[in-house]
C-alpha cells in the first residue's frame, strides 16, 4: 500500500511542478489562500521581533546619545549659517525640485508597505508585504524603494501580497542604458540566479557601454512604467557588430536589507484585443503580413 501511495503523491507533485513551470504570469489560488493564512502569523511575529529589536537598539544607542546630541547641535548651527548664505540659490533649487516632484507624483500614486515575510525556502528571495487587494493592490503592480526598482506583485491576498524580485530567474523587463529618448541602447533585464546581480541582454554590440552607467526601465514590457531606475552597470562582456553585449547590473534597490517598499498603483496599458485573443504559441509565430487575404 505504502509504495503505491508514495508513487501517487510523487507523481501528483511532479504534475503540479510541470504545470507551474509552464504557466507564466498566472496567479495560484493555493498561494492566495496561503498568504491569507500566513498573515495571521507573519504580522504579529514581525511586529514583536521589530519591537524587541528596536528596544535593544535604542538601549544601546542611549550611551552615545549625549555626544551625538552635541554634534547635532553644532551641525544645526552650521546648517543655519549655510542656509542664510545660500537663500537665493536654495529658493531656485526648491522651485525646480517642486516642479520635478509634481511631475513624478502626478504620474503614479505610491502605496507604502512593510515587508512581513520572506521566502520560506533558502533557494529563492521573494517577499510578502502587508498590503493586499483591500488596499487596492493588484497583480503585476511594480514595487520600488527610494533606491530603485524592486520587482512586481505576483500574488494578492485580501491583506497581503507577494513580491517577486527582479533577480528572480523568470523575471524580465524592458530597459535602456541612460535616459530614454537620448539612448538607443535597449535591451531586456532578467535574473541571473544570483541575489545581487541581474543581466541585460540583446544590447547591440556596436553600441559603446561602460561600467558605471545607469539603467532605467523603458515601459515597453507592459508591466513596469518608464523611467524607473534598475541599477548600475558593473561588468560588460563586449560583443561585436553581430554579437550583442552581455551586461551585468547591480540593482539600485537594496534587495537584501529592505524593510519598507512602495507599490506603484500603476495600471498597465491595455493590450489590443487581437493580441489577447491569440494563443501563446500564435503570438510568437504569427506576423502581420501573414494574415489571410
Amino acid at each position, binding site marked *: 500500500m505504502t509504495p503505491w501511495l508514495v508513487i501517487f503523491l510523487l507523481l501528483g507533485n511532479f504534475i503540479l511542478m510541470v504545470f507551474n513551470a509552464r504557466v507564466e504570469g498566472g496567479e495560484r489560488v493555493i498561494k492566495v489562500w496561503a498568504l491569507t493564512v500566513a498573515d495571521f502569523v507573519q504580522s504579529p511575529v*514581525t511586529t514583536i521581533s521589530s519591537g524587541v529589536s528596536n528596544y535593544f537598539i535604542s538601549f544601546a544607542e542611549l550611551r552615545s546619545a549625549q555626544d551625538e546630541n552635541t554634534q547635532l547641535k553644532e551641525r544645526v548651527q552650521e546648517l543655519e549659517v549655510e542656509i542664510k548664505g545660500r537663500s537665493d540659490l536654495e529658493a531656485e533649487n526648491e522651485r525646480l525640485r517642486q516642479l520635478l516632484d509634481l511631475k513624478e507624483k502626478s504620474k503614479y500614486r505610491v502605496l507604502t508597505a512593510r515587508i512581513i515575510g520572506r521566502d520560506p525556502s533558502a533557494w529563492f528571495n521573494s517577499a510578502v508585504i502587508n498590503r493586499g487587494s483591500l488596499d487596492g493592490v493588484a497583480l503585476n503592480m511594480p514595487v520600488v524603494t527610494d533606491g530603485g526598482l524592486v520587482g512586481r506583485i505576483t500574488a494578492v491576498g485580501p491583506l497581503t501580497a507577494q513580491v517577486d524580485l527582479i533577480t528572480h530567474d523568470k523575471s524580465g523587463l524592458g530597459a535602456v542604458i541612460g535616459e530614454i529618448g537620448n539612448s538607443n541602447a535597449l535591451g531586456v533585464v532578467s535574473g541571473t540566479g544570483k541575489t545581487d546581480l541581474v543581466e541585460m541582454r540583446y544590447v547591440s554590440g556596436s553600441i559603446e557601454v561602460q561600467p558605471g552607467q545607469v539603467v532605467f526601465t523603458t515601459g515597453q514590457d507592459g508591466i513596469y512604467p518608464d523611467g524607473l531606475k534598475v541599477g548600475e552597470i558593473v561588468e560588460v562582456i563586449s560583443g561585436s557588430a553581430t554579437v550583442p553585449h552581455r551586461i551585468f547590473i547591480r540593482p539600485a534597490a537594496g534587495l537584501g536589507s529592505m524593510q519598507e517598499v512602495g507599490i506603484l498603483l500603476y495600471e498597465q496599458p491595455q493590450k489590443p484585443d487581437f493580441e489577447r485573443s491569440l494563443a501563446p504559441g500564435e503570438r510568437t509565430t504569427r506576423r502581420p503580413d501573414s494574415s489571410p487575404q
Partner: protein
Amino acid sequence: MEQVKVTIALILAILAQWSLRNVAEPFAYVDFPLIIIVFAALQRNSMRAIIYGTLAGLAVDALSSGLLGANGFTKTLVAYLVSELARRVYLDNLFLRMIVIAGACLVDDLAYYGLHQLLGITPSAPLVTTVAYSFIGTLIAGTTIFFVLDYFSSDRLRPRRRESLSQRRQSRRRNPIKLGR
C-alpha cells in the same frame, strides 16, 4: 495522543518556516518541517510520515517563488526513504538520528535543486553555499528539536522502564540460589 503531538509540532514548524526568515536571515537555512517529518518517519509509521511530508512541502511551496510541488516531492521522498530505513535499521540512538537528519537534508536540497534545473528554473541562491548552510543549520536545529520532542513524547516510556526494573528486582529476590543461602 502521540499523533496529535507530532501534528502540532508539524503545524508549528510550518508557521516557523513562514515567518522566522524575516526575523533573522540565518533561519532561512533551517528546514523546520523536514526535521519533524524525519522525526515522524523514525517512529516507523511510514504512511503518516509520507502524508505529513507532502502536506508540509506544499505549505512551504505555497509561499515560495519556487515551483509548486517541488518541496512536496522532495519531502515525500525523504519521508519514504527514512521510514524504510527505520524499518530495517535500529535508529533510536541520537548519534544515528543526527546522521539521518544530515542525510535527509542533503537529499532534500539536492533533489529540490535538481528538479528546478530539470524544469528550466535556476534558483537564486548558489548550490554549494546553500546546501552547506542548510546542512549545518538543519543539523543543529534538528538535534535540539529531537531532544525536546523526545522529552515530551517519552512520558509513556518512563513507567515501562520503571516496571521492567522493578520486575528484575523481584526476580532477583526470588532467586532460589540466594534463597537457599
